[in-house]
């Protein structure tokens, strides 16, 4: 039985189905004056996940629109309190106004960790949930050091910083009790980016597709699950063809092509990933994260919306 296990990721999403899903999302969002947005995004994510399979296992997305909406409402109240408090502090002294924004910046890693935890706890392999167990403290230290070094090296250190971040995220991610790991190297990433950016500029953006493929493959090739390496074989030509004809076809069909475009792009990216050895699924035993919640995602949504409104008012 083990020999038959399909090691390559398969994606069975269809443009037509996705089109109907988007239409439904669009109208329900409009008639609910935007509130359905939370459900809509869950629907899209779930559509992509539920049509993805690997090693005979189904990937699942289990967030609900309701929990994301509730998270958003809670976050909005929280944000309103923070803004109100900050206004008060500024009235007392303009210098006091720096306290809360600074506090928020320092708390940002905690928000990112909480978001990651929520996402992982709502993702599953054959119904066994993923789990993220990283601590915000570690990320804060890493971000402070990484951010500082990136700044003084004029961005060059970002490659190494991103590799560290990925290692941290993957190393603390498990499916139930089976873990991931990442061993990408900052130097390699820097070379790929340097080459990618230069060639993209020289070729007026054409190389960007191959750049995207190369970086995706690099990350996949340096990802391990249960100690076994994954293999990335995304072909830049496929991305190029889709992104070259995508806008043309979208214009010709008055946008109708967009769902097909998105689904095909997803298929190219996902089907370029495979395992090199069948996973031992008996080692994956559920270890649910019972306290992960959508508050951090709600905070990001609320802040984004606020930013958008402020953007528009100024």
């Amino acid at each position: 039985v083990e020999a038959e296990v399909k090691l390559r990721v398969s994606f069975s999403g269809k443009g037509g189905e996705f089109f109907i899903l988007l239409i439904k999302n669009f109208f329900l969002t409009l008639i609910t004056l935007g509130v359905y947005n939370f459900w809509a995004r869950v629907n899209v994510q779930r559509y992509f996940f539920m049509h993805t399979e690997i090693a005979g296992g189904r990937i699942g997305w289990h967030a609900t629109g309701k929990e994301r909406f509730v998270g958003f409402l809670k976050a909005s109240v929280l944000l309103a309190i923070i803004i109100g408090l900050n206004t008060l502090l500024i009235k007392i002294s303009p210098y006091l106004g720096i306290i809360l924004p600074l506090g928020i910046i320092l708390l940002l890693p905690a928000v990112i960790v909480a978001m990651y935890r929520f996402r992982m706890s709502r993702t599953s392999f054959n119904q066994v949930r993923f789990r993220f167990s990283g601590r915000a403290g570690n990320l804060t230290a890493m971000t402070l050091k990484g951010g500082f070094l990136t700044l003084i090296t004029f961005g060059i250190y970002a490659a190494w910083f991103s590799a560290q971040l990925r290692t941290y995220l993957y190393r603390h991610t498990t499916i139930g009790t089976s873990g991931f790991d990442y061993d990408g190297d900052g130097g390699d990433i820097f070379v790929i980016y340097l080459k990618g950016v230069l060639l993209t500029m020289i070729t007026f953006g054409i190389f960007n597709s191959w750049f995207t493929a190369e970086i995706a493959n690099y990350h996949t090739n340096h990802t391990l699950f249960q100690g076994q390496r994954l293999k990335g074989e995304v072909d830049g030509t496929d991305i190029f063809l889709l992104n070259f004809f995508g806008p043309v076809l979208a214009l010709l069909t008055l946008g109708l092509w967009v769902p097909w475009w998105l689904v095909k792009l997803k298929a190219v990216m996902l089907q370029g990933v495979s395992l090199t050895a069948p996973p031992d699924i008996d080692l994956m035993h559920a270890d649910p994260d019972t306290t992960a919640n959508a508050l951090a995602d709600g905070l990001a949504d609320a802040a984004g919306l606020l930013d958008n409104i402020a953007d528009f008012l100024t």
Partner: protein
Amino acid sequence: MIHQTGAVHLDGVKPRPRPGKLVYDGANKELHFYEIDAETQAEKFAFSFDKNHAYEIRTRAREQLIEWRVQGNHTSALIVISDLKFTRLVRDKYLSHKNIFWRYATYVWSESFGRVIIALAVALTITGIGAHYFMENSYHLIPVTWDKSVGDQAEVGLKEFGAICASPETVRDLKKFLPYFKESGTPHQYDIQILKSSVENAFALPGGKITVFSATVQKAKNYEELAGILAHEVGHVERRHGMQQLSQYMALRLVLTLAFGMTDDGSILSFAADAGALLLLLKNSRDHERDADAFAAQKLGEAGISSRAIRQFFERINKDYKSEVSSVPDFVLTHPADEDRIKFFERYETKNKKQINAAAERLNPEIRELLEQKPVISAACKVSGDLKKNNGNEETDGD
């Protein structure tokens, strides 16, 4: 009645799928799962479903997935079957105690294309009517007292077109027409200013500040022409077109932001939404021009001023800028084609000839005299040399 179908169970604890069968006992309205041993093919009762948990039914290609969540959303189990009849039975009989909306909402969409179309048509109608009503009326929510402050803020933007210059005589003469055009008891405080520019244009800001470009004054044959333009601009102020556009734009942006802005993965989608919003607002702005024309025609008529001059003005503009305007399709122009506007004024005048003539009899002789005079302009405002062509927009309400 007992119904059954082959099923695969994923329990949320171990990833290995457990094949078996799903049995619905119609008499007791119970749902049971029996596990089948892979080697001996022996059936063994595994568990019964608990109705009180949250259920969701979805389709994935030919499969139906029934997912149920045990308290909270940190774990959930899944039954996979490929028997649409059985799934409907579960939905309609076993889960019949559940809220009908939620029972159907998750499933109906993917089940029948016909229903999708019907639901779409209903949604489209409701959305359309709702959106139309909202777009037409949302500006009522903004108090009239805000118009002035919005206008004052927008005034800064006029700098792009040139500097305000002093031409007290022109302003004094133009102000003589205002009482004829503004609504009685208007909350707006009107003011007129001249902007030095070689472009022909006029703006009305919310709140009542009207800016006339000096080229418009210089090129006008008489005050009758300017009176028409003034009446049109007063129309924008009285009907609060600037505020309408502002509130529509804000509402549209907010809804579109909610609909597309907050996407996890959708830059392509937001691009499509922006284009749609732009076209919608352009159409609306043309409606406002027509509305201001209607206002102007009515007020001119009531005052007894002929629209002959404003029609000639349009004709002149039409001739001067024909090559530029005709190359732009009417659909994307913010202003209705000038010929349409000329015809509109003509029709109005023919229809109300008697009243207009009667009003003309009563018109203050001083005003009557002024109408025929060539507008004066101060040296400070005068533009020398060739007057430039404008960009095809004659009077735009700047807001």
